């Protein structure tokens, strides 16, 4: 039954409908593959009992002719999503034993549509990282390796477990969260499709908060069509999240295969970085050629404040994180470390409960919000953010339908290779993705080729607010031209 794990969501949907296999068989095939792939450390919790029960219920609904849009589809859930009765840790020691009494809206939407939960996937602690190396549960190892080498590589982050699970056929799709690139960057590193929708498209309710004005949920899949299928189920208005948008969810799948003739695609010149590998430059040009061949019009555009997006992000995101993570105080849930008084208890709990990257970001955030520094750092960064968003608006108002950029400045790197001496080295991974979060726009990373060492590279498409459909149409055009990229199984 090994081949059941290599299906796309749309193939599996057809197979289940035709009763070529059952939801129980599909779940079993995945659970067996997960067991054999533990060396990847993609899952921090496997939930076979839950998967069996959900698959059985799916088979009953299929038999009764009451199948939902995702009936029987096995999905992995990033451990940033709270799942009722199932341990949800955000990859942190401080939430190591946390069992939510509620279900996040996004995952509840998936189960409503019939999806089957396989387990919870590893991520950087509180989604703070670009390599999945800051997780309390240890790094995720990418299913990809450089040609002729067995150096363990990172899958990217923070949604590294979800990306690795989808790339290694350990789930047909997975949920991720993206605050500065945490879906699109790992998608690019693992040869998968990753979509961050417009801010407000998916409810943030029940997702462990990192930076509330930037966080959005989105899907990982192996094809663009599958991303459209999964996003439709995840999206929708939720009265429990005041930033959730009350706007109908389109049938995103209908955008697949739609003509892109005459669409104006912007190539932002500021994304051409000094010292960018020639392979990335070539990939980018090839992507533009593919879209042109499919009828799109390629035009050069300028987003003048691009270089300020990453520094502004490293003020705004830690500032919001320092506020959001204030709740971890050793009183209501999570780890408590005893102290001589309540302040000492707070301080010891947070010192032992948070890893180094989280402690660093909470401290930076505390500093930029503190009296005397607020205007110089936080207020200035929020003004720069307005300018970043305006850059995009100016282009869209001039008729540009979407932008094409590289997804990452390089292919995946080795475990332990980056950010040891200087945290900023790691932060630079998100240079192409972070602008999209700062402006609240939708972005998709689509696999577009392999580098000289045989590692996947992705292209990013950035769209107008709530025009995810355009990104699916364009993304599928790239996928058609580039083909799909599958890692050689070594685990």
């Amino acid at each position, binding site marked *: 039954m090994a081949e059941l794990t290599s299906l796309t969501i749309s193939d599996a949907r057809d197979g289940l409908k035709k009763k070529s296999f059952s939801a129980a068989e599909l779940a079993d095939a995945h659970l067996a593959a997960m067991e054999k792939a533990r060396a990847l450390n993609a899952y921090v919790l496997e939930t076979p009992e839950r998967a069996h029960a959900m698959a059985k219920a799916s088979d009953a609904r299929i038999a009764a002719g009451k199948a939902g849009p995702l009936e029987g589809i096995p999905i992995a859930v990033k451990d940033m999503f709270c799942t009722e009765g199932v341990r949800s840790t955000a990859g942190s020691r401080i939430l190591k034993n946390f069992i939510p009494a509620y279900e996040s809206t996004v995952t509840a939407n998936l189960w409503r549509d019939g999806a089957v939960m396989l387990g919870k996937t590893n991520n950087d602690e509180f989604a703070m990282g670009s390599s999945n190396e800051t997780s309390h549960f240890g790094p995720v190892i990418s299913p990809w390796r450089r040609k002729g080498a067995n150096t363990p590589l990172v899958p990217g982050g923070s949604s590294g477990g979800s990306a690795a699970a989808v790339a290694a056929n350990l789930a047909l799709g997975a949920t991720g969260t993206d605050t500065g690139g945490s879906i699109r960057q790992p998608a690019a590193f693992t040869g998968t499709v990753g979509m961050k929708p417009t801010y407000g498209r998916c409810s943030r309710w029940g997702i462990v908060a990192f930076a509330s004005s930037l966080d959005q949920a989105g899907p990982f899949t192996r094809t663009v069509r599958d991303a459209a299928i999964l996003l439709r189920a995840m999206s929708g208005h939720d009265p429990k999240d005041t*930033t959730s948008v009350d706007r109908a969810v389109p049938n995103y799948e209908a955008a697949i295969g739609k003509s892109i003739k005459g669409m104006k695609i912007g190539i932002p010149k500021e994304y051409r970085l000094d010292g960018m590998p020639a392979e990335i430059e070539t990939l980018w040009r090839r992507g533009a050629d593919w879209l042109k061949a499919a009828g799109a019009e390629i035009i050069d555009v300028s987003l003048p404040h691009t270089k*300020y997006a990453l520094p502004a992000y*490293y003020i705004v995101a830690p500032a919001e994180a320092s506020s959001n993570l204030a709740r971890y105080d050793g009183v209501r849930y999570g780890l408590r470390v*005893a102290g001589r008084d309540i302040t000492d208890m707070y*301080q010891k709990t947070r010192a032992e409960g948070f890893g180094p990257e989280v402690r660093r970001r909470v*401290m930076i955030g505390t*500093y930029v919000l503190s009296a005397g520094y607020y205007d110089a750092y936080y207020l200035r960064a929020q003004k*720069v953010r307005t300018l970043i968003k305006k850059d995009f608006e100016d282009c869209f108002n001039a008729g540009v339908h979407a932008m094409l950029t590289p997804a990452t400045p390089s292919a995946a790197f080795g475990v332990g290779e980056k950010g040891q001496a200087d945290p900023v080295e790691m932060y630079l991974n998100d240079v192409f993705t972070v602008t999209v979060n700062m402006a609240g726009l939708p972005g998709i990373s689509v696999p577009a080729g392999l580098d000289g060492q045989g590692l996947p590279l992705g292209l990013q498409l950035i769209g107008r607010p709530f025009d995810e459909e355009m990104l699916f149409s364009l993304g599928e055009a790239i996928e058609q031209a580039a083909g799909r990229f599958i890692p050689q199984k070594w685990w």
Partner: protein
Amino acid sequence: MSVDADTVRRIAHLARIAVADDEVEHLRGEINAILAFVEQLSEVNVEGVEPMTSVMPMTMKKRADAVTDGGNADAVLRNAPATQDHFFLVPKVVE
């Protein structure tokens, strides 16, 4: 701008994170690396620019000020490290 050791200790206290003396110097270096990186924002002319408050313009949703949930003390306390009779237990704060 860069921070000195005393500032690192002050930030750590504000953030309620215990920092050992031998960690201060290392943290100071890392925080200063990040502050040096964000320093480039000072080049940007932000004269007359409104700070962003909401990335997608929308009217704040409101609901009636009514009790919509409750009576779940057991569920609320389920993950608490120390409880007694439906209360969270904390170290003594008033002498």
